C-alpha cells in the first residue's frame, strides 16, 4: 500500500499536488469535448455494473434541472474501497463531481453516503466546506458564473440503496425500493423524475486524472480492454488484506499469492469470490490463472462487480459460507419481488437447516430449483425474474455448491451436521426485529432455537 501523508484529506494537500486544476479547466471545455474525452478514456463505472461512464453522460435527457448523485452507499460484503477514497481523498471525488456537473449542466449534486460510514460523511462534509470556502463550490465556482451545490445525504442502513434507482427513491424520502426499468432510467427520469447521473465514488475519483493525463494515456495504462486502474478490496483468508489499486490484466494467482501474500498458515485455497458477494465463486482448479479483466471473468461465468475479492481457505465450510452470503441478500432484499423476497429467505433457511444437521438428501436439488425460480437457468449474467439484480445475485453461492461442492453438502447430510470444526456453534440468523420495535417471539419467524421450536409446534398443529 502506498504510504499516504496524514493530511491527504485536506484541500491544501490536494491542491499542492495539482488538485482542482482540472475542475477549473473543465469550465472552459464544452459538454461535447468532455463527454468525448471520457468516452475515449474507456472508463467503466466502478459501482459494479461496469457501465461506460462517457456513454452514461451522453444518454442524459435534455430536460433540466438535471442532478448528479454520487453513489457512496458501498455496502456489498467484501467491499471497502470507497470508504478509503472518502476518508483519505475526498477532494479527488469532489473534483470529479465538479467535472461531471459541468459536463452535464448539473447545478445540484447529492453525495449519498451509507449511514454506517459517519466518519466518511464527516470527512466529505469537511472537504466540501473547504471547497465552498475557496469558491470551488457554491455560487459562481472558480470565479465563473456557474453555480454548483453539493449536499451530503446519509443513508439509513440498507444495501439495496446502492442500486441506483433505489438510491434515488431513498433520496426522495421513500423506501429504498428499486424502480422499474423501463421506464425509470435515471438518465431520463431520475431524482424528482428529472434526468440524473448516478456515479460511483471511484468512478468520479478517476475523472481528474483522466483530464490531467489525457484519455489516451489513461486508456493505455493497461494492455486490456479495461482501461485505467481500479481498486480491489482483498479480504478473507489472505495474509495481506486491504485495498489495492491495480492495472487490469494480472492473474488471480498473482493477486492472491503475490500481492495478498497467500493463505495464512500455509493452508490451501478452496475458493474465492471474485467481485463482491454478488459474483459467482471461483475455485483454484479452474480459475487461478485467469486474467483479471471484465471479459475473462465474464467468460468464466462471473464478474468483477465492485472489485471485492473474498478468499476462503481449505477449512472453510462452504455450506456455512453460502448461508452467510445468502443471509446477507435475504436481509437486504427490499421485498418488492416475490422471488427475491420469498426465495432468498427460503434458501437461507434450507442452508441453515443443513448446517444445523437437519439436511435431507433432496435439499441440494431443492436449493438449485428454488434458485432457478429467482434466476432462470442459474447462470451469469442471470435471466432475472426480478426487478433488480439483487435477488439473482443471491443465488451465486448455490451455483458454487452445485458445481464444486456437492460432496460437502452431502457430507453435512450424512454427518447430521457440519463436518468442519466450528468454534461458534450454530449459524446466526438475520437480526430479529426486536431492536426495530417488533418482538420477534410474538411476530415474525425466528430461528432462535426456543422460539423456532414453538413455531414449529404451532405449524404442525395447523
Amino acid at each position, binding site marked *: 500500500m502506498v504510504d*499516504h501523508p*496524514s*493530511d*491527504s*484529506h485536506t484541500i491544501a494537500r490536494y491542491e499542492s499536488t495539482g488538485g482542482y486544476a482540472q475542475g477549473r479547466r473543465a469550465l472552459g471545455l464544452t459538454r461535447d469535448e468532455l463527454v468525448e474525452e471520457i468516452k475515449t478514456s474507456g472508463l467503466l463505472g466502478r459501482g459494479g455494473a461496469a457501465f461506460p461512464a462517457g456513454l452514461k453522460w451522453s444518454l442524459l435527457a435534455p430536460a433540466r*434541472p438535471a442532478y448528479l448523485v454520487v453513489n457512496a452507499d458501498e*455496502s*456489498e*460484503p467484501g*467491499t*471497502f474501497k*470507497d*470508504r*478509503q477514497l472518502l476518508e*483519505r481523498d475526498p477532494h479527488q471525488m469532489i473534483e470529479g463531481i465538479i467535472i461531471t456537473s459541468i459536463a452535464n449542466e448539473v447545478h*445540484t449534486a447529492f453525495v449519498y453516503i451509507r*449511514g*454506517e*460510514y*459517519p466518519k466518511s460523511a*464527516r470527512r466529505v*462534509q469537511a472537504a*466540501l466546506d473547504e471547497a*465552498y470556502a475557496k469558491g470551488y463550490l457554491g455560487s459562481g465556482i472558480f470565479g465563473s458564473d456557474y453555480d454548483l451545490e453539493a*449536499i*451530503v445525504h*446519509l443513508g*439509513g*442502513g*440498507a*444495501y439495496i440503496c446502492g442500486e441506483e434507482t433505489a438510491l434515488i427513491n*431513498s433520496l*426522495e*424520502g*421513500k*423506501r429504498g425500493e428499486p424502480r422499474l426499468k423501463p421506464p425509470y432510467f435515471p438518465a431520463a427520469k431520475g431524482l424528482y423524475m428529472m434526468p440524473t447521473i448516478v456515479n460511483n465514488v471511484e468512478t468520479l475519483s478517476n475523472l481528474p486524472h483522466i483530464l490531467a493525463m489525457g484519455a489516451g494515456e489513461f486508456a493505455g495504462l493497461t494492455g486490456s480492454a479495461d482501461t485505467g486502474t481500479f481498486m480491489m478490496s*482483498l*479480504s*478473507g483468508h489472505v495474509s495481506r*488484506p*486491504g*485495498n489495492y489499486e491495480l492495472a487490469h490484466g494480472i492473474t488471480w494467482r498473482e493477486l492472491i499469492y503475490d500481492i495478498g501474500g497467500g493463505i495464512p498458515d500455509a493452508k490451501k485455497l478452496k475458493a474465492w*469470490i471474485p467481485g463482491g*458477494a454478488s459474483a459467482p465463486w471461483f475455485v483454484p482448479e479452474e480459475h487461478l490463472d485467469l486474467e483479471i479483466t471484465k471479459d475473462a471473468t465474464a467468460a468464466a461465468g462471473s464478474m468483477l462487480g465492485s472489485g471485492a475479492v*473474498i478468499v*476462503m481457505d481449505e477449512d*472453510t465450510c462452504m455450506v456455512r459460507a453460502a448461508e*452467510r*452470503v445468502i443471509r*446477507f441478500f435475504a436481509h437486504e432484499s*427490499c421485498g418488492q419481488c416475490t422471488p427475491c423476497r420469498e426465495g432468498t429467505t427460503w434458501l437461507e433457511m434450507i442452508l441453515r437447516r443443513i448446517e444445523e444437521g437437519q439436511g435431507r438428501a433432496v435439499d441440494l436439488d431443492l436449493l438449485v430449483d428454488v434458485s432457478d425460480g429467482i434466476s432462470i437457468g442459474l447462470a451469469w449474467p442471470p435471466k432475472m425474474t426480478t426487478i433488480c439484480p439483487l435477488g439473482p445475485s443471491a443465488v451465486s453461492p448455490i451455483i458454487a455448491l452445485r458445481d464444486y461442492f456437492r460432496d460437502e453438502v452431502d457430507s453435512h447430510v450424512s454427518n447430521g451436521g457440519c463436518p468442519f470444526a466450528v*468454534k461458534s*456453534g450454530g449459524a*446466526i440468523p438475520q437480526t*430479529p426485529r*426486536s*431492536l*426495530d*420495535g417488533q418482538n*420477534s417471539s410474538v411476530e415474525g419467524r425466528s430461528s432462535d432455537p426456543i422460539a423456532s421450536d414453538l413455531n414449529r409446534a404451532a405449524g404442525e398443529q395447523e
Partner: protein
Amino acid sequence: MSRWSEGTQERARQIIARYPEKRSAVMPLLYLAMSEEGYLTGDGMEEVGRWCEITPAQVLSVASFYTMYKRERTGQYLVSCCTSITCMLLGGDDVLHAVEDESGVPHGETDDDGLLSVEHVECIGACGGAPAVQVNYELIEGVSPEKARQLIRWLESARPEVVNSDEMQALFGARRSFDWAISEVNGATGPYPAFQPLGTVGSEVAD
C-alpha cells in the same frame, strides 16, 4: 405545535431548505428525531411527518425499511458486531458471542439499565480489518473475542460521553482495512451516527 426544542426546529428548517422537495428530508429528520429522544418514538415519527407533510404511516414505512432507525429504546451504546461473510470467516461470530456473553445482552436486545444494546449486522465495509465492531457506528477493526470483552467492560465502567473511533481502535483493535493515520476528535454521543449537519451542507458555508 412542535414538541422539538427551538434549536432542533431550526435545524429541521435548515435541513428541509437543502432539498428541492420536503419529503427528501425524511431520513435526516429521522436521525434528528432519534437524537432528541435517544431512539425513534411514535411522537418522533409524527413530528417528522408534520415537517415533511406526509402521514405518520408513510414515515413509519420509510423508517422501518432501514436498519439504523431504532424504534425501540436503545442503549447509550449500540454495539454492532459484523457477522457478514468476511468477518464470519475470520471469527466474527466468536466476537459476537463474546460481546453477548460479557454484556449479558443477547443480540437484538438492550440491557435493563439502557446502557448497552447489542446487534449483529451485515457488512460494515471493514473487511480488510475483519472482524469488525462498531459502537454507535464508530468503527473498531481487528477485534478479537478477548478484546471485545474488554471493550464491553470499558464501556460499562468508563461510560465515555463520546465514543471515538481512533481511541477505541487503539485500545481494542488490531489490523485495519487501511491505515488512515489521520486522527479525528469527533465521536458519537448516542446510538445514531455522529454526523452533525445530518445530511446537509454546513449552513454557515453554503449560505
